[in-house]
Protein backbone atom coordinates (compact mmCIF):
# COMPACT_ATOMS: atom_id res chain seq x y z
CA UNK A 1 0.00 0.00 0.00
CA UNK A 2 1.14 3.48 -0.86
CA UNK A 3 0.39 6.19 1.65
CA UNK A 4 1.24 9.76 1.00
CA UNK A 5 0.58 13.17 2.33
CA UNK A 6 2.50 15.81 0.43
CA UNK A 7 2.70 19.47 -0.23
CA UNK A 8 4.61 20.98 -3.11
CA UNK A 9 4.62 24.52 -4.39
CA UNK A 10 5.33 25.26 -8.08
CA UNK A 11 5.14 29.01 -8.51
CA UNK A 12 1.52 30.00 -7.86
CA UNK A 13 0.36 26.41 -7.92
CA UNK A 14 0.23 24.39 -4.73
CA UNK A 15 -0.21 20.63 -4.70
CA UNK A 16 -1.52 19.64 -1.29
CA UNK A 17 -2.80 16.10 -1.34
CA UNK A 18 -3.14 12.95 0.69
CA UNK A 19 -4.04 9.55 -0.68
CA UNK A 20 -3.63 5.84 -0.21
CA UNK A 21 -3.36 3.22 -2.94
CA UNK A 22 -3.90 -0.35 -1.72
CA UNK A 23 -1.96 -3.29 -3.13
CA UNK A 24 -3.73 -5.44 -5.76
CA UNK A 25 -6.04 -2.55 -6.62
CA UNK A 26 -6.06 0.14 -9.27
CA UNK A 27 -6.30 3.61 -7.86
CA UNK A 28 -7.14 6.16 -10.51
CA UNK A 29 -6.10 9.73 -9.99
CA UNK A 30 -8.40 11.78 -12.20
CA UNK A 31 -8.49 15.50 -12.85
CA UNK A 32 -8.19 18.12 -15.52
CA UNK A 33 -4.79 18.96 -16.97
CA UNK A 34 -2.92 21.23 -14.61
CA UNK A 35 -4.55 19.68 -11.54
CA UNK A 36 -1.19 18.33 -10.36
CA UNK A 37 -1.64 14.65 -11.27
CA UNK A 38 1.67 14.21 -13.06
CA UNK A 39 3.47 16.16 -10.35
CA UNK A 40 2.06 13.82 -7.72
CA UNK A 41 3.16 10.77 -9.71
CA UNK A 42 6.66 12.20 -10.07
CA UNK A 43 6.84 12.72 -6.31
CA UNK A 44 6.06 9.03 -5.77
CA UNK A 45 8.62 7.98 -8.40
CA UNK A 46 11.26 10.19 -6.77
CA UNK A 47 11.77 12.26 -9.93
CA UNK A 48 10.83 15.31 -7.85
CA UNK A 49 10.49 15.85 -4.11
CA UNK A 50 7.74 17.44 -2.02
CA UNK A 51 8.40 20.55 0.04
CA UNK A 52 6.70 18.90 2.98
CA UNK A 53 5.05 15.62 3.81
CA UNK A 54 5.68 11.92 3.89
CA UNK A 55 5.47 9.06 1.38
CA UNK A 56 5.55 5.42 2.43
CA UNK A 57 5.26 2.26 0.37
CA UNK A 58 4.46 -1.01 2.16
CA UNK A 59 5.58 0.66 5.37
CA UNK A 60 8.95 1.72 3.94
CA UNK A 61 9.61 5.45 4.04
CA UNK A 62 10.40 6.85 0.58
CA UNK A 63 10.26 10.47 1.62
CA UNK A 64 9.87 12.15 4.95
CA UNK A 65 10.38 15.84 5.33
CA UNK A 66 10.55 15.66 9.12
CA UNK A 67 13.38 13.11 9.28
CA UNK A 68 15.05 14.16 6.02
CA UNK A 69 14.56 10.80 4.25
CA UNK A 70 14.64 11.27 0.49
CA UNK A 71 15.29 8.05 -1.43
CA UNK A 72 16.47 8.41 -5.04
CA UNK A 73 14.32 6.76 -7.74
CA UNK A 74 16.61 3.74 -7.97
CA UNK A 75 16.14 2.94 -4.29
CA UNK A 76 12.34 2.91 -4.55
CA UNK A 77 10.45 -0.20 -5.58
CA UNK A 78 8.47 1.83 -8.07
CA UNK A 79 7.64 1.08 -11.71
CA UNK A 80 7.04 4.25 -13.65
CA UNK A 81 5.45 4.48 -17.09
CA UNK A 82 5.56 8.07 -18.28
CA UNK A 83 3.42 9.66 -20.94
CA UNK A 84 4.48 8.70 -24.49
CA UNK A 85 5.98 5.52 -22.87
CA UNK A 86 9.56 6.91 -23.27
CA UNK A 87 11.08 3.70 -24.56
CA UNK A 88 14.81 3.90 -25.34
CA UNK A 89 14.81 4.42 -29.11
CA UNK A 90 18.28 2.94 -29.65
CA UNK A 91 17.53 -0.33 -27.85
CA UNK A 92 15.54 -3.32 -29.01
CA UNK A 93 12.39 -4.39 -27.19
CA UNK A 94 14.44 -7.02 -25.38
CA UNK A 95 17.12 -4.55 -24.29
CA UNK A 96 14.47 -2.08 -23.18
CA UNK A 97 12.92 -4.72 -20.93
CA UNK A 98 16.34 -5.89 -19.71
CA UNK A 99 17.42 -2.31 -18.90
CA UNK A 100 16.15 -2.33 -15.31
CA UNK A 101 17.67 -5.69 -14.32
CA UNK A 102 20.99 -4.69 -15.90
CA UNK A 103 21.00 -1.27 -14.28
CA UNK A 104 20.28 -2.95 -10.94
CA UNK A 105 23.46 -4.97 -11.37
CA UNK A 106 21.73 -8.36 -11.32
CA UNK A 107 23.82 -11.32 -12.51
CA UNK A 108 23.57 -12.02 -16.25
CA UNK A 109 21.63 -15.26 -15.74
CA UNK A 110 18.98 -13.53 -13.67
CA UNK A 111 18.77 -10.67 -16.15
CA UNK A 112 18.04 -13.25 -18.83
CA UNK A 113 15.40 -15.21 -16.89
CA UNK A 114 13.59 -12.09 -15.73
CA UNK A 115 13.63 -10.57 -19.22
CA UNK A 116 12.45 -13.79 -20.85
CA UNK A 117 9.64 -14.09 -18.31
CA UNK A 118 8.48 -10.51 -18.86
CA UNK A 119 8.64 -10.85 -22.65
CA UNK A 120 6.61 -14.05 -22.50
CA UNK A 121 4.06 -12.68 -20.05
CA UNK A 122 3.29 -9.67 -22.22
CA UNK A 123 3.44 -11.60 -25.51
CA UNK A 124 6.46 -9.60 -26.61
CA UNK A 125 8.78 -12.47 -27.54
CA UNK A 126 8.01 -12.19 -31.28
CA UNK A 127 8.84 -8.48 -31.12
CA UNK A 128 12.00 -8.86 -29.04
CA UNK A 129 14.37 -7.74 -31.80
CA UNK A 130 12.36 -4.75 -32.93
CA UNK A 131 13.13 -1.18 -32.02
CA UNK A 132 10.44 1.09 -30.56
CA UNK A 133 10.02 2.98 -33.85
CA UNK A 134 8.91 -0.28 -35.47
CA UNK A 135 6.08 -0.84 -32.97
CA UNK A 136 2.46 0.31 -32.89
CA UNK A 137 1.26 2.48 -30.03
CA UNK A 138 -0.35 -0.46 -28.26
CA UNK A 139 2.81 -2.56 -28.58
CA UNK A 140 4.93 0.28 -27.24
CA UNK A 141 2.66 0.47 -24.23
CA UNK A 142 3.07 -3.24 -23.60
CA UNK A 143 6.84 -2.87 -23.72
CA UNK A 144 6.73 0.10 -21.35
CA UNK A 145 4.64 -1.84 -18.83
CA UNK A 146 6.77 -4.97 -19.16
CA UNK A 147 9.88 -2.83 -18.64
CA UNK A 148 8.39 -1.26 -15.52
CA UNK A 149 7.18 -4.56 -14.03
CA UNK A 150 10.26 -6.68 -14.72
CA UNK A 151 11.80 -5.54 -11.43
CA UNK A 152 8.68 -6.54 -9.43
CA UNK A 153 7.89 -3.06 -8.08
CA UNK A 154 5.59 -2.55 -5.11
CA UNK A 155 3.66 0.05 -7.09
CA UNK A 156 3.11 0.66 -10.78
CA UNK A 157 2.70 4.30 -11.78
CA UNK A 158 0.98 5.03 -15.09
CA UNK A 159 0.84 8.59 -16.39
CA UNK A 160 -1.99 9.04 -18.93
CA UNK A 161 -1.27 5.63 -20.48
CA UNK A 162 -3.90 6.07 -23.19
CA UNK A 163 -3.34 9.69 -24.16
CA UNK A 164 -0.52 8.97 -26.62
CA UNK A 165 -2.83 6.84 -28.76
CA UNK A 166 -5.05 7.90 -31.60
CA UNK A 167 -8.79 7.39 -31.01
CA UNK A 168 -8.94 4.40 -33.35
CA UNK A 169 -6.45 2.30 -31.35
CA UNK A 170 -7.50 3.73 -27.99
CA UNK A 171 -10.47 1.40 -27.65
CA UNK A 172 -8.60 -1.83 -28.26
CA UNK A 173 -5.58 -0.78 -26.21
CA UNK A 174 -7.87 0.17 -23.35
CA UNK A 175 -9.22 -3.37 -23.24
CA UNK A 176 -5.71 -4.77 -23.50
CA UNK A 177 -4.47 -2.50 -20.74
CA UNK A 178 -7.35 -3.57 -18.50
CA UNK A 179 -6.26 -7.19 -18.92
CA UNK A 180 -2.61 -6.36 -18.25
CA UNK A 181 -3.44 -4.56 -15.03
CA UNK A 182 -5.81 -7.21 -13.72
CA UNK A 183 -4.32 -9.39 -11.02
CA UNK A 184 -1.12 -7.44 -10.47
CA UNK A 185 0.24 -8.14 -6.99
CA UNK A 186 1.40 -4.54 -6.58
CA UNK A 187 -0.61 -1.38 -6.17
CA UNK A 188 -1.36 0.56 -9.34
CA UNK A 189 -1.67 4.32 -9.45
CA UNK A 190 -3.15 5.39 -12.75
CA UNK A 191 -3.35 9.03 -13.77
CA UNK A 192 -5.87 10.23 -16.34
CA UNK A 193 -7.77 13.37 -17.27
CA UNK A 194 -10.56 11.22 -18.67
CA UNK A 195 -13.37 10.37 -16.22
CA UNK A 196 -14.37 7.53 -18.55
CA UNK A 197 -10.99 5.89 -17.96
CA UNK A 198 -11.41 6.43 -14.25
CA UNK A 199 -14.68 4.48 -14.33
CA UNK A 200 -13.24 1.79 -16.60
CA UNK A 201 -10.10 1.17 -14.53
CA UNK A 202 -10.51 2.45 -11.02
CA UNK A 203 -11.23 0.24 -8.06
CA UNK A 204 -10.54 3.38 -6.09
CA UNK A 205 -10.95 6.82 -7.59
CA UNK A 206 -9.28 9.98 -6.37
CA UNK A 207 -10.34 13.31 -7.89
CA UNK A 208 -7.68 15.99 -7.94
CA UNK A 209 -8.75 19.57 -8.63
CA UNK A 210 -6.35 22.52 -8.59
CA UNK A 211 -3.85 20.60 -6.51
CA UNK A 212 -6.36 19.32 -3.95
CA UNK A 213 -8.19 16.03 -3.50
CA UNK A 214 -11.89 16.81 -3.76
CA UNK A 215 -13.18 13.25 -3.64
CA UNK A 216 -11.79 9.83 -3.04
CA UNK A 217 -13.38 6.47 -2.54
CA UNK A 218 -14.68 3.42 -4.36
CA UNK A 219 -15.94 3.60 -7.93
CA UNK A 220 -19.53 3.07 -6.77
CA UNK A 221 -19.36 5.97 -4.34
CA UNK A 222 -17.86 8.08 -7.09
CA UNK A 223 -20.83 7.47 -9.37
CA UNK A 224 -23.53 7.63 -6.73
CA UNK A 225 -22.30 10.56 -4.72
CA UNK A 226 -20.16 12.81 -6.85
CA UNK A 227 -18.69 15.57 -4.80
CA UNK A 228 -16.90 17.68 -7.38
CA UNK A 229 -18.01 19.88 -10.27
CA UNK A 230 -15.56 18.08 -12.54
CA UNK A 231 -17.11 14.68 -11.90
CA UNK A 232 -20.65 16.08 -11.95
CA UNK A 233 -20.09 17.57 -15.36
CA UNK A 234 -18.78 14.30 -16.70
CA UNK A 235 -21.69 12.34 -15.25
CA UNK A 236 -24.14 14.83 -16.80
CA UNK A 237 -25.49 16.14 -13.48
CA UNK A 238 -27.03 19.59 -13.10
CA UNK A 239 -24.43 21.85 -11.54
CA UNK A 240 -25.84 25.10 -10.12
CA UNK A 241 -23.98 28.00 -8.57
CA UNK A 242 -25.78 30.24 -6.14
CA UNK A 243 -25.69 32.15 -2.91
CA UNK A 244 -27.22 31.31 0.47
CA UNK A 245 -29.95 33.74 1.53
CA UNK A 246 -30.84 34.24 5.20
CA UNK A 247 -30.89 31.81 8.10
CA UNK A 248 -32.05 28.18 8.00
CA UNK A 249 -35.57 27.26 8.98
CA UNK A 250 -36.79 23.72 9.45
CA UNK A 251 -33.41 22.33 8.31
CA UNK A 252 -33.65 24.12 4.96
CA UNK A 253 -32.15 27.32 3.61
CA UNK A 254 -33.06 29.43 0.65
CA UNK A 255 -30.50 29.84 -2.15
CA UNK A 256 -30.54 32.34 -4.97
CA UNK A 257 -29.46 30.85 -8.31
CA UNK A 258 -29.63 33.62 -10.90
CA UNK A 259 -33.21 34.96 -10.67
CA UNK A 260 -34.51 31.78 -9.06
CA UNK A 261 -34.79 30.84 -5.40
CA UNK A 262 -34.33 27.22 -4.40
CA UNK A 263 -34.79 25.42 -1.11
CA UNK A 264 -31.89 23.15 -0.13
CA UNK A 265 -30.78 21.23 2.96
CA UNK A 266 -28.91 23.50 5.38
CA UNK A 267 -25.22 23.33 4.39
CA UNK A 268 -24.17 24.98 7.66
CA UNK A 269 -22.48 27.89 5.90
CA UNK A 270 -23.35 31.01 3.99
CA UNK A 271 -22.10 32.80 0.90
CA UNK A 272 -21.39 31.28 -2.51
CA UNK A 273 -22.35 27.64 -2.90
CA UNK A 274 -22.35 24.97 -5.58
CA UNK A 275 -25.21 22.49 -5.90
CA UNK A 276 -25.79 19.25 -7.75
CA UNK A 277 -29.18 18.01 -8.87
CA UNK A 278 -29.24 14.54 -10.38
CA UNK A 279 -31.39 14.49 -13.55
CA UNK A 280 -33.29 11.49 -12.09
CA UNK A 281 -34.38 13.63 -9.13
CA UNK A 282 -36.33 15.94 -11.43
CA UNK A 283 -40.04 15.24 -12.05
CA UNK A 284 -41.57 16.72 -15.19
CA UNK A 285 -45.18 17.82 -15.72
CA UNK A 286 -47.22 19.97 -18.12
CA UNK A 287 -49.24 21.72 -15.37
CA UNK A 288 -47.73 23.43 -12.33
CA UNK A 289 -47.38 20.57 -9.82
CA UNK A 290 -49.08 20.67 -6.44
CA UNK A 291 -46.96 17.96 -4.80
CA UNK A 292 -44.48 18.16 -1.97
CA UNK A 293 -41.48 19.21 -4.09
CA UNK A 294 -40.16 22.52 -2.80
CA UNK A 295 -38.52 23.56 -6.03
CA UNK A 296 -40.56 24.13 -9.19
CA UNK A 297 -39.20 25.79 -12.32
CA UNK A 298 -41.10 26.33 -15.56
CA UNK A 299 -39.65 26.61 -19.05
CA UNK A 300 -39.83 25.37 -22.63
CA UNK A 301 -38.35 22.03 -23.64
CA UNK A 302 -35.27 22.83 -25.73
CA UNK A 303 -34.10 19.35 -26.68
CA UNK A 304 -34.81 15.67 -26.04
CA UNK A 305 -31.79 13.35 -26.20
CA UNK A 306 -31.83 9.56 -25.90
CA UNK A 307 -29.71 8.39 -22.95
CA UNK A 308 -27.43 5.53 -23.89
CA UNK A 309 -27.36 2.63 -23.40
CA UNK A 310 -30.58 1.08 -24.65
CA UNK A 311 -32.15 4.51 -24.94
CA UNK A 312 -35.17 3.63 -22.83
CA UNK A 313 -34.44 6.77 -20.92
CA UNK A 314 -34.39 10.21 -22.45
CA UNK A 315 -32.66 13.33 -21.33
CA UNK A 316 -34.94 16.36 -21.49
CA UNK A 317 -33.24 19.73 -21.61
CA UNK A 318 -35.35 22.60 -20.31
CA UNK A 319 -34.92 26.32 -20.99
CA UNK A 320 -35.62 27.17 -17.35
CA UNK A 321 -33.51 29.69 -15.43
CA UNK A 322 -31.09 28.13 -14.71
CA UNK A 323 -31.35 25.50 -17.47
CA UNK A 324 -31.93 21.97 -16.19
CA UNK A 325 -31.60 18.46 -17.57
CA UNK A 326 -34.08 15.83 -16.46
CA UNK A 327 -33.92 12.11 -17.02
CA UNK A 328 -37.25 10.36 -17.58
CA UNK A 329 -38.39 7.21 -19.35
CA UNK A 330 -39.22 7.52 -23.02
CA UNK A 331 -42.71 6.30 -22.20
CA UNK A 332 -43.46 9.09 -19.74
CA UNK A 333 -41.96 11.68 -22.07
CA UNK A 334 -44.38 10.50 -24.73
CA UNK A 335 -47.34 10.43 -22.29
CA UNK A 336 -46.60 14.01 -21.29
CA UNK A 337 -46.38 14.96 -24.96
CA UNK A 338 -42.96 16.51 -24.45
CA UNK A 339 -41.40 17.98 -27.57
CA UNK A 340 -39.12 20.92 -28.24
CA UNK A 341 -41.00 24.17 -27.59
CA UNK A 342 -43.57 22.63 -25.23
CA UNK A 343 -43.81 24.38 -21.83
CA UNK A 344 -43.06 22.09 -18.91
CA UNK A 345 -42.42 22.24 -15.16
CA UNK A 346 -39.43 20.71 -13.44
CA UNK A 347 -39.93 19.84 -9.79
CA UNK A 348 -37.38 18.45 -7.32
CA UNK A 349 -37.27 18.07 -3.55
CA UNK A 350 -34.92 20.01 -1.34
CA UNK A 351 -33.53 16.63 -0.24
CA UNK A 352 -32.62 15.90 -3.87
CA UNK A 353 -30.05 18.69 -3.88
CA UNK A 354 -26.42 17.81 -3.08
CA UNK A 355 -24.27 20.60 -1.73
CA UNK A 356 -20.67 20.43 -3.00
CA UNK A 357 -17.89 21.03 -0.52
CA UNK A 358 -16.33 24.50 -0.87
Amino acid at each position, binding site marked *: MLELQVRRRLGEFVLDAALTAPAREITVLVGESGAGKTTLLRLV*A*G*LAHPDEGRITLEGRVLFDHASGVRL*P*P*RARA*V*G*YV*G*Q*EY*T*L*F*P*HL*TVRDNVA*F*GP*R*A*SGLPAAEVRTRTDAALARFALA*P*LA*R*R*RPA*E*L*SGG*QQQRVAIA*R*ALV*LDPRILLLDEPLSALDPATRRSVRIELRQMLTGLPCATLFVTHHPGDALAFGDQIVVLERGRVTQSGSRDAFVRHPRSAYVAEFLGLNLLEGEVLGAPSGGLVSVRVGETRLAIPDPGRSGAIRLLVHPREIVLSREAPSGSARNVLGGPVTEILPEPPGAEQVRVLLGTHPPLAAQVSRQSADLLGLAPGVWAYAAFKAAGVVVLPP
Partner: protein
Amino acid sequence: MDTGSPRDREGRLWSAWVVTTTVALLAFLGLPLLGLLSRATPRALLSHLADPRVLTALELSLLTTLTATAVVVLFGTPAAYLLATRSFPGKRGIEALIELPMVLPPTVAGFALLMAFGRAGLAGGALRALGISLPYTTLGVIVAQVFMATPFYVAPARAGFGGVDRRLLEAADSLHASEAFRFFHVVLPLAAPAIRAGLALSAARALGEFGATITFAGNLPGTTQTMPLAVYLALQTDLDLAVVLSVILLVTSFALLLGLRSAPAGWMGARFHAGTPGPPPAR
Protein backbone atom coordinates in the same frame (compact mmCIF):
# COMPACT_ATOMS: atom_id res chain seq x y z
CA MET B 1 -2.10 32.13 -65.75
CA ASP B 2 -0.59 35.58 -65.39
CA THR B 3 3.17 35.21 -65.36
CA GLY B 4 3.95 38.89 -65.62
CA SER B 5 2.55 40.18 -62.32
CA PRO B 6 4.92 42.18 -60.08
CA ARG B 7 4.76 39.40 -57.52
CA ASP B 8 6.01 36.85 -60.05
CA ARG B 9 8.78 39.18 -61.23
CA GLU B 10 9.82 39.66 -57.65
CA GLY B 11 9.87 35.88 -57.18
CA ARG B 12 12.06 35.34 -60.25
CA LEU B 13 14.41 38.11 -59.22
CA TRP B 14 14.76 36.57 -55.76
CA SER B 15 15.51 33.10 -57.18
CA ALA B 16 18.04 34.55 -59.61
CA TRP B 17 19.82 36.40 -56.82
CA VAL B 18 19.95 33.39 -54.49
CA VAL B 19 21.20 31.04 -57.21
CA THR B 20 23.77 33.46 -58.65
CA THR B 21 25.37 34.31 -55.33
CA THR B 22 25.53 30.65 -54.35
CA VAL B 23 27.21 29.72 -57.63
CA ALA B 24 29.69 32.56 -57.21
CA LEU B 25 30.52 31.41 -53.69
CA LEU B 26 30.99 27.80 -54.82
CA ALA B 27 33.30 28.95 -57.63
CA PHE B 28 35.33 30.97 -55.17
CA LEU B 29 35.65 28.03 -52.76
CA GLY B 30 36.21 25.45 -55.47
CA LEU B 31 38.76 27.20 -57.66
CA PRO B 32 41.69 26.97 -55.20
CA LEU B 33 41.07 23.25 -54.81
CA LEU B 34 40.96 22.90 -58.58
CA GLY B 35 44.18 24.90 -58.85
CA LEU B 36 45.86 22.60 -56.36
CA LEU B 37 44.64 19.43 -58.05
CA SER B 38 45.61 20.74 -61.51
CA ARG B 39 49.21 20.96 -60.31
CA ALA B 40 49.09 17.44 -58.91
CA THR B 41 50.19 15.52 -61.98
CA PRO B 42 50.32 11.74 -61.56
CA ARG B 43 54.05 11.88 -62.20
CA ALA B 44 54.65 14.42 -59.46
CA LEU B 45 52.45 12.46 -57.04
CA LEU B 46 54.21 9.16 -57.74
CA SER B 47 57.69 10.61 -57.53
CA HIS B 48 57.06 12.24 -54.17
CA LEU B 49 54.72 9.83 -52.39
CA ALA B 50 57.65 7.78 -51.19
CA ASP B 51 59.75 10.87 -50.46
CA PRO B 52 61.11 10.47 -46.90
CA ARG B 53 60.18 14.09 -46.17
CA VAL B 54 56.53 13.30 -47.00
CA LEU B 55 56.48 10.07 -45.05
CA THR B 56 58.14 11.65 -42.00
CA ALA B 57 55.67 14.53 -41.91
CA LEU B 58 52.71 12.22 -42.57
CA GLU B 59 53.75 9.82 -39.82
CA LEU B 60 54.21 12.67 -37.35
CA SER B 61 50.88 14.24 -38.29
CA LEU B 62 48.97 10.99 -37.87
CA LEU B 63 50.65 10.21 -34.54
CA THR B 64 50.05 13.67 -33.07
CA THR B 65 46.54 14.06 -34.44
CA LEU B 66 45.41 10.67 -33.13
CA THR B 67 46.99 11.27 -29.73
CA ALA B 68 45.62 14.82 -29.48
CA THR B 69 42.12 13.67 -30.47
CA ALA B 70 42.24 10.89 -27.89
CA VAL B 71 43.25 13.38 -25.18
CA VAL B 72 40.49 15.78 -26.29
CA VAL B 73 37.88 13.02 -26.06
CA LEU B 74 39.18 11.75 -22.73
CA PHE B 75 39.01 15.14 -21.06
CA GLY B 76 36.41 16.84 -23.23
CA THR B 77 33.66 14.24 -22.79
CA PRO B 78 33.25 14.67 -19.02
CA ALA B 79 33.52 18.46 -19.40
CA ALA B 80 30.85 18.50 -22.10
CA TYR B 81 28.59 16.29 -19.96
CA LEU B 82 29.10 18.51 -16.92
CA LEU B 83 28.29 21.65 -18.89
CA ALA B 84 25.24 20.00 -20.46
CA THR B 85 23.74 18.67 -17.25
CA ARG B 86 24.70 20.93 -14.35
CA SER B 87 24.31 24.58 -13.61
CA PHE B 88 26.72 26.26 -11.21
CA PRO B 89 28.06 29.74 -10.59
CA GLY B 90 30.69 30.82 -13.10
CA LYS B 91 29.44 28.44 -15.76
CA ARG B 92 29.31 31.19 -18.41
CA GLY B 93 32.95 32.01 -17.76
CA ILE B 94 34.01 28.36 -18.05
CA GLU B 95 32.10 28.03 -21.30
CA ALA B 96 33.84 31.12 -22.68
CA LEU B 97 37.22 29.72 -21.62
CA ILE B 98 36.59 26.44 -23.43
CA GLU B 99 35.36 28.21 -26.56
CA LEU B 100 38.17 30.78 -26.61
CA PRO B 101 40.63 28.80 -28.79
CA MET B 102 37.97 28.77 -31.53
CA VAL B 103 38.32 32.52 -31.97
CA LEU B 104 41.88 33.09 -30.75
CA PRO B 105 44.50 33.69 -33.48
CA PRO B 106 46.60 30.47 -33.43
CA THR B 107 49.90 32.35 -33.19
CA VAL B 108 48.61 34.10 -30.08
CA ALA B 109 47.60 30.69 -28.71
CA GLY B 110 51.11 29.37 -29.40
CA PHE B 111 52.66 32.38 -27.70
CA ALA B 112 50.34 31.93 -24.71
CA LEU B 113 51.34 28.26 -24.52
CA LEU B 114 55.00 29.31 -24.41
CA MET B 115 54.23 31.71 -21.58
CA ALA B 116 52.52 28.89 -19.69
CA PHE B 117 54.48 25.74 -20.51
CA GLY B 118 57.72 27.17 -21.94
CA ARG B 119 61.00 26.91 -20.05
CA ALA B 120 60.39 30.33 -18.51
CA GLY B 121 56.61 29.89 -18.42
CA LEU B 122 54.32 29.74 -15.40
CA ALA B 123 54.38 25.95 -15.26
CA GLY B 124 57.81 25.62 -16.86
CA GLY B 125 59.63 25.03 -13.57
CA ALA B 126 57.18 22.37 -12.45
CA LEU B 127 57.44 20.59 -15.80
CA ARG B 128 61.25 20.73 -15.71
CA ALA B 129 61.19 19.23 -12.23
CA LEU B 130 59.21 16.33 -13.69
CA GLY B 131 61.73 16.02 -16.49
CA ILE B 132 59.23 17.16 -19.14
CA SER B 133 60.06 19.67 -21.82
CA LEU B 134 57.34 20.78 -24.18
CA PRO B 135 58.69 23.46 -26.53
CA TYR B 136 60.33 22.07 -29.66
CA THR B 137 59.21 18.50 -28.88
CA THR B 138 56.57 16.18 -30.35
CA LEU B 139 54.76 16.39 -27.03
CA GLY B 140 54.58 20.15 -27.55
CA VAL B 141 52.90 19.60 -30.93
CA ILE B 142 50.26 17.47 -29.24
CA VAL B 143 49.75 20.11 -26.54
CA ALA B 144 49.22 22.80 -29.19
CA GLN B 145 46.78 20.58 -31.09
CA VAL B 146 44.81 19.68 -27.95
CA PHE B 147 44.58 23.35 -27.03
CA MET B 148 43.23 24.33 -30.43
CA ALA B 149 40.99 21.30 -31.06
CA THR B 150 39.23 20.99 -27.69
CA PRO B 151 36.35 23.42 -28.34
CA PHE B 152 35.57 21.74 -31.66
CA TYR B 153 34.81 18.56 -29.75
CA VAL B 154 33.27 19.96 -26.58
CA ALA B 155 30.70 22.19 -28.30
CA PRO B 156 28.97 19.49 -30.40
CA ALA B 157 29.32 16.87 -27.64
CA ARG B 158 27.71 19.23 -25.16
CA ALA B 159 24.86 19.95 -27.57
CA GLY B 160 24.41 16.21 -28.07
CA PHE B 161 24.32 15.45 -24.34
CA GLY B 162 21.95 18.35 -23.72
CA GLY B 163 19.68 17.19 -26.53
CA VAL B 164 18.90 13.81 -25.00
CA ASP B 165 15.21 13.75 -24.06
CA ARG B 166 14.90 14.44 -20.33
CA ARG B 167 12.05 11.94 -20.10
CA LEU B 168 14.40 9.15 -21.24
CA LEU B 169 16.80 10.10 -18.45
CA GLU B 170 13.95 9.91 -15.95
CA ALA B 171 12.88 6.55 -17.37
CA ALA B 172 16.44 5.32 -16.78
CA ASP B 173 16.39 6.72 -13.23
CA SER B 174 13.15 4.95 -12.42
CA LEU B 175 14.66 1.71 -13.82
CA HIS B 176 17.34 1.86 -11.11
CA ALA B 177 20.14 3.21 -13.31
CA SER B 178 22.98 5.03 -11.61
CA GLU B 179 24.13 8.20 -13.33
CA ALA B 180 27.18 6.39 -14.75
CA PHE B 181 25.08 3.50 -16.09
CA ARG B 182 22.67 5.99 -17.57
CA PHE B 183 25.53 7.87 -19.22
CA PHE B 184 26.99 4.82 -20.94
CA HIS B 185 23.71 3.12 -21.88
CA VAL B 186 21.41 6.02 -22.72
CA VAL B 187 23.16 9.38 -23.01
CA LEU B 188 26.23 8.33 -24.96
CA PRO B 189 24.44 6.15 -27.56
CA LEU B 190 21.80 8.80 -28.17
CA ALA B 191 24.40 11.56 -28.44
CA ALA B 192 26.55 9.43 -30.76
CA PRO B 193 25.90 11.48 -33.92
CA ALA B 194 26.96 14.66 -32.13
CA ILE B 195 30.00 12.93 -30.64
CA ARG B 196 31.05 11.73 -34.09
CA ALA B 197 30.63 15.25 -35.46
CA GLY B 198 32.81 16.61 -32.66
CA LEU B 199 35.39 13.89 -33.24
CA ALA B 200 35.67 14.67 -36.94
CA LEU B 201 35.82 18.43 -36.39
CA SER B 202 38.45 18.27 -33.66
CA ALA B 203 40.56 15.70 -35.52
CA ALA B 204 40.45 17.92 -38.63
CA ARG B 205 41.39 20.93 -36.54
CA ALA B 206 44.33 19.06 -34.96
CA LEU B 207 45.49 17.77 -38.34
CA GLY B 208 45.44 21.22 -39.86
CA GLU B 209 46.93 23.03 -36.86
CA PHE B 210 49.75 25.35 -37.97
CA GLY B 211 50.05 28.65 -36.11
CA ALA B 212 50.12 27.44 -32.52
CA THR B 213 52.36 24.52 -33.42
CA ILE B 214 55.04 26.55 -35.19
CA THR B 215 55.01 29.19 -32.44
CA PHE B 216 55.08 26.80 -29.52
CA ALA B 217 56.83 23.71 -30.89
CA GLY B 218 58.88 25.04 -33.76
CA ASN B 219 59.51 23.46 -37.16
CA LEU B 220 61.93 20.55 -36.71
CA PRO B 221 61.63 17.79 -39.34
CA GLY B 222 60.82 14.45 -37.71
CA THR B 223 60.05 16.03 -34.33
CA THR B 224 57.62 18.91 -34.73
CA GLN B 225 57.27 19.39 -38.48
CA THR B 226 53.74 18.16 -39.16
CA MET B 227 52.15 18.15 -42.62
CA PRO B 228 50.91 21.77 -42.59
CA LEU B 229 54.36 22.96 -41.51
CA ALA B 230 56.02 20.82 -44.18
CA VAL B 231 53.74 22.36 -46.81
CA TYR B 232 54.79 25.84 -45.74
CA LEU B 233 58.48 24.93 -45.91
CA ALA B 234 58.17 23.12 -49.24
CA LEU B 235 56.46 26.12 -50.80
CA GLN B 236 59.79 27.93 -50.59
CA THR B 237 61.95 25.04 -51.86
CA ASP B 238 60.09 22.37 -53.84
CA LEU B 239 56.65 23.23 -55.29
CA ASP B 240 55.93 19.64 -56.38
CA LEU B 241 56.54 18.46 -52.83
CA ALA B 242 54.18 21.16 -51.51
CA VAL B 243 51.51 20.00 -53.94
CA VAL B 244 51.79 16.36 -52.87
CA LEU B 245 51.65 17.25 -49.18
CA SER B 246 48.68 19.53 -49.79
CA VAL B 247 46.76 16.95 -51.78
CA ILE B 248 47.23 14.38 -49.03
CA LEU B 249 45.95 16.87 -46.45
CA LEU B 250 43.05 17.81 -48.71
CA VAL B 251 41.99 14.21 -49.23
CA THR B 252 42.29 13.39 -45.52
CA SER B 253 40.31 16.47 -44.48
CA PHE B 254 37.66 15.77 -47.07
CA ALA B 255 37.37 12.17 -45.93
CA LEU B 256 36.94 13.36 -42.33
CA LEU B 257 34.23 15.76 -43.42
CA LEU B 258 32.42 13.10 -45.46
CA GLY B 259 32.61 10.73 -42.53
CA LEU B 260 31.10 13.40 -40.34
CA ARG B 261 28.28 14.21 -42.75
CA SER B 262 27.23 10.74 -43.76
CA ALA B 263 28.03 8.78 -40.62
CA PRO B 264 24.96 9.54 -38.48
CA ALA B 265 22.30 8.60 -41.01
CA GLY B 266 24.35 5.78 -42.51
CA TRP B 267 25.33 4.41 -39.14
CA MET B 268 21.82 4.48 -37.75
CA GLY B 269 20.47 2.97 -40.95
CA ALA B 270 23.02 0.19 -40.91
CA ARG B 271 22.24 -0.67 -37.29
CA PHE B 272 18.56 -0.45 -38.01
CA HIS B 273 18.47 -2.80 -40.94
CA ALA B 274 21.31 -5.14 -40.06
CA GLY B 275 19.27 -7.11 -37.52
CA THR B 276 17.99 -10.50 -38.55
CA PRO B 277 14.65 -10.07 -40.25
CA GLY B 278 11.75 -10.48 -37.85
CA PRO B 279 8.08 -10.79 -38.68
CA PRO B 280 6.69 -7.85 -40.63
CA PRO B 281 5.67 -4.88 -38.48
CA ALA B 282 2.13 -5.28 -37.22
CA ARG B 283 0.10 -2.09 -37.24
